């Protein structure tokens, strides 16, 4: 009994050793004083986060800035890790906030310790943040509403129809903002396009079920579905296929799918003309921009703007090969798996 317990413990420890190795960047430069920054990132549970962090880390490496990374999967662990980070000597704190409100206490603690704070992808609703680098999620929602309205117009010949929103996770400020932007623009600018349903979906399976339920209820009366993040968009496509309501783009019974982010699978499906479009955010650009702003502030000592918005862009089957889109860049075709 005791022996086997020991055995289990040994296995657990050795497994732990294998998996935790890559979570800390261990290059400690001896000699000249390097700039050290603390990064509170999210678990890279999707390609977007991965591309963003990859771009960030590769830029940081080029500029020989040292990074201590702490990864978390929810608000509470992020808070704990922030406290751990701030006991170390860091010159700045970079945060990916799960929630604009919950992150405030982290920002305030950092303010007390006079550590400059930067956030990316989402803003903090309080405290003193030097700079925030993100897509303007509210205006992204508006862009999506206008794009979907135009697609409804293409289909029905008028700005009139029924659409639904797969909301993602409304505890994520970025998703909430997009939904708000979408709803506001749609109701103000296109009063005849009704948002008949909007539901949260935290996983692709949930998105699949929600979309299937809507298709069962509304059938081809539903003109389009807007998905607030592309990790749910493919599931919406699966639902339409499973409900046997697949019609080519341009046919009167086609159900429009509009996504957000430009994930790899979605880009492929846009090329295959199965998905009508996605409002791309530039993940690699956001990651690189954070480092540029950091460098300006910390190393060059220049003043920086409080907000940097990295523009988003609508990608459709019709413009995906255009110079404009190529210039904007499709991050999912640039990052390394």
């Amino acid at each position, binding site marked *: 009994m005791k022996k*086997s317990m020991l055995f289990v413990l040994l296995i657990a420890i050795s*497994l732990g050793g294998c998996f935790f190795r890559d979570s800390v960047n261990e290059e400690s430069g001896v000699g000249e004083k390097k700039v050290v920054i603390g990064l509170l990132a999210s678990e890279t549970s999707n*390609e977007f986060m991965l591309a963003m962090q990859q771009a960030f880390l590769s830029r940081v490496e080029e500029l020989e800035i040292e990074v201590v990374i702490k990864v978390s999967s929810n608000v509470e662990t992020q808070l704990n890790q922030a406290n751990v980070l701030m006991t170390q000597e860091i010159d700045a704190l970079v945060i990916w906030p799960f929630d604009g409100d919950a992150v405030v206490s982290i920002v305030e603690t950092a303010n007390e310790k006079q550590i400059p704070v930067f956030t990316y992808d989402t803003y903090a609703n309080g405290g003193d943040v030097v700079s925030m680098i993100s897509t303007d999620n509210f205006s992204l929602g508006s862009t999506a509403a206008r794009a979907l309205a135009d697609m409804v117009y293409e289909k029905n010949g008028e700005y009139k129809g029924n659409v639904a929103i797969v909301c993602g996770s409304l505890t994520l400020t970025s998703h909430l903002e997009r939904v708000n932007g979408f709803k506001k623009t749609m109701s103000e600018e296109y009063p005849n396009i009704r948002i008949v349903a909007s*539901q949260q979906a935290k996983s692709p*399976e949930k998105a699949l079920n929600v979309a299937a*339920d809507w298709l069962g209820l509304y059938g081809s009366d539903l003109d389009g579905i807007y998905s607030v993040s592309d990790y749910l968009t493919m599931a919406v496509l*699966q639902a339409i296929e499973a409900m046997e309501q697949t019609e080519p783009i341009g046919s009167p019974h086609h159900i429009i799918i509009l996504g957000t982010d430009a994930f790899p699978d979605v880009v492929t499906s846009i090329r295959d003309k199965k998905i009508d479009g996605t409002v791309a955010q530039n993940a690699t650009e956001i990651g690189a921009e954070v480092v540029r702003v950091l460098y300006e502030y910390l190393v060059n000592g220049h003043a920086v703007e409080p907000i940097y918005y990295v523009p988003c862009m609508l990608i459709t089957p019709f413009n995906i090969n255009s110079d404009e889109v190529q210039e904007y860049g499709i991050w999912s075709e640039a990052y390394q798996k």
Partner: protein
Amino acid sequence: MNLRIKNWGIQLRKYYVVIFLIILAGVFFSLNSEGFLTWKNWQNLILQSTTVAIAATGLTFVMLAGNFDLSGGAIVAFVGVIGADLVVNQGIHPLLGILVTLLLGGGLGAINGWLVSRLGLASFITTLATMTILRGVALNYTGGITISGLPSLFRILGTGSLWGVPMPVLLTLVLYLIGQLLLSKTVLGYHIYVVGGDQKAAHLSGIEVKKIHLITYIIAGVMYGAAALVLTGRVGVAMSTSATGLEMTAMSAIVIGGCSLYGGRGSLVGTYLGVLLMTLLENGANLLNLSSYWIQLFEGSFILIGLLSDKARVKKTYPIR
């Protein structure tokens, strides 16, 4: 004949709580949404219940024997990711991939069972630990990448159909029948109930309690593997974060279905009715465009009702306690 009808009555009475709740929810939704009582919606509903139903079938075995298993969702995600990766990136045959997914599920179940039965660790905490480990390993294995581009043969259990019946539904039915046969017609099934009812008595009457515990975890593991195949098949992607909370939905369904938390009492019929109720709630919320917060509130209350009725039944059966 008369006896048989009476027997049915007794059978039904066992599930009166869950049946009552299903009818209540059903009436509410059909009054408020014309889309609810349609053939298409019920096709959707049954299809959507399959992942949870299969996982819950496995979990019922574990709970009947008096243990818990919190690692269900994590195993589903883990084996789904491994199976999909082997097929998509390592180029093994999809059918072999399906087999590996099932076996891996069984193997992980065996580890759970070994930890609980041989080492005598508390099942709740042990499976909490394996759940955390497996989620972590899956996340590291994929590095956050979604595995897509699954060949249609690998997805067959999620998207295929046979004689017009969708594969997931057929699979759920087959697994249910096998489970029911195991529980009601074999010595093993009898032993599971006895072990769950009173471990000491079971041990004294010569039943190998540890072995029974191990077997129930292995059965659960294989079922999780099957659930993973249905899930990845339906969604078309494998992710390390999929099936989050599946174990809780399954456990709630099982409890609402009348399975005792202390083991020894419950049935697969009850479990499936519980799963149906949970799916019904989600489906109704989607049709009525209700906020999912409300659904959480209902689900929670229904679990409480299930627990209370379980407690009432225990009192009735063993009034002295």
